[in-house]
């Protein structure tokens, strides 16, 4: 822990596996509306990857480019280190505003910090329709509209909106493709544009650990659970379990 920020570097350098679902969904949407059925130039649509992360994020960006995205923006600056969800959404919103897109597709949550809040924050900051937790997505370019099935604990909500929209997709929305050899070769020639703090137009005080809207007071390893009871079932394991639960007033 440094400066009131949890060090996530030790957790996993692999970019968010959920984002592959977002890339795959973008490809499927473009392919569905491409005259040749393929993404890329012939489709008349472009898919830009936007990733905010350290230098080592480039590997994950290359992988997503090899799946078929057209180009990428890598937002990378030491000043961004330690950004919380609010700062992250602020930076992403600035970059998105600068370029203008019809559709923003995000994963639902990162594997390390379980904050599924960035997409909602982006929608709020951009004033775009919020179409999050999508279990299916249909885009109609003719009417510039989008429909999703939103899957949450309350059930399945069918939702519609006019573009632009911020979509987040749930795991299992699709089966992300493996990059083909051709895709891997093509990705080597695709452009990854780096953006530093100065390119976003934001002040250094607005981002990174210093700007964090919340801070960690302390972080302690969870005390190991006390050694439990382990019994072998020799014919009355079920009854013995219920006796234990009754003792603990759980039945």
């Amino acid at each position: 822990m440094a400066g009131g920020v949890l060090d996530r570097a030790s957790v996993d350098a692999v970019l968010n596996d959920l984002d592959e679902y977002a890339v795959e969904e973008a490809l499927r949407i473009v392919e569905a509306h491409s005259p040749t059925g393929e993404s890329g130039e012939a489709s008349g649509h472009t898919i830009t990857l936007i990733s905010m992360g350290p230098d080592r994020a480039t590997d994950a960006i290359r992988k997503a480019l090899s799946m078929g995205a057209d180009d990428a923006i890598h937002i990378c600056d030491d000043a961004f280190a330690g950004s919380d969800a609010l700062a992250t959404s602020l930076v992403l919103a600035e970059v998105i505003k600068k370029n203008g897109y019809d559709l923003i597709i995000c994963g639902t949550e990162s594997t390390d910090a379980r904050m599924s809040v960035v997409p909602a924050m982006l929608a709020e900051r951009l004033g775009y329709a919020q179409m999050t937790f999508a279990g299916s997505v249909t885009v109609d370019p003719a009417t510039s509209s989008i429909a999703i099935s939103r899957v949450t604990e309350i059930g399945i909500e069918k939702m519609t909106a006019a573009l632009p929209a911020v979509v987040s997709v749930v795991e299992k929305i699709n089966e992300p493709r493996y990059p083909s050899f051709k895709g891997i070769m093509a990705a080597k020639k695709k452009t990854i544009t780096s953006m530093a703090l100065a390119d976003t137009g934001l002040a250094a005080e607005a981002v990174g650990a210093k700007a964090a809207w919340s801070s960690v007071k302390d972080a302690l390893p969870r005390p190991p659970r006390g050694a439990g009871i382990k019994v072998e079932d020799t014919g009355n394991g079920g009854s013995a379990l219920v006796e234990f639960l009754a003792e603990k007033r759980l039945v």
Partner: protein
Amino acid sequence: MSDMSTVLILVDALDGKVSSAVGELATFGKRIGEVVAVVAANDGAGVAAQLSSFAIDRAIICTGADFASHSIAPIAEALAAAVAKESPTAVLITSTARGKEIAARLAVRTNSGLLTDAVDIDADAIATQSVFGGSTTVHSAVNHGTSIVTLRSNSVEVQSGSGPATTEVLAVAISDSAKKSSVTSLEATVKGGRPELTEASVVVSGGRGTNGDFAPVEAFADSMGAAVGASRAATDAGWYPHSHQVGQTGKTVSPSLYVACGISGAIQHRAGMQTSKMIVAINKDPEAPIFELADYGVVGDLFAVLPQATTAINARK
């Protein structure tokens, strides 16, 4: 900090029914100060009428059809209006997918810090979170604006109270910007008599060890009034719906009792259940890692242990 501070708690009752999670928010809120419930619903008065047994001091009622038809943004807007009016120390919201998104938009609108998935909060609004798959306990505080905190249900025993002494209506004109997405239909999760997974005080989960037969898991769950969960091995195989998956890429549960049946205890599964207060494991393999977590482990065949346990529980009723 008590007495001088005001805490807003969100009463989000899409189906018109107030859940015990609201009682938990009130219980937490009381530690910090005066508790003001903000109701944002189609039938605001009908929802507010259900608050009478909770430790709530006042209620602010926002009524309108937009809350149901435009999902998240209008509720955040109503809450933001209540924040502007009350200047609270904290806003407490239940940590569901909906709740977290409402909190996210509110944080942006009010330029305030946000802490999600808290399991506890103290009088100074310092929240306790469990991170990195439950391996680390973190205490965090918001240091900018209002403390916006989402709290997991089943985190505290509901303290009863006499309900709001006063209620007032807050008229909020929902902006066009908050109506950009529209809900055209809602197919509510079929409860089938079982409690919702993330709200249940008892969860019984089945894994690959069920070999696709969830009947004994469900029967035991029903005898306990429990929700049914599943490991990814079980949801991947199509044995149980993905919406019931517990773990890193599924739901996070923290019930009073979690019963893992035929589940090995992979790190990704633990991430979703290891903050449960009591853990019971039933597994054929005495070396299964789930036993490291279990307060009570039965080494045995779930097809023998569960039916016997179900019978024993039903016999006690």
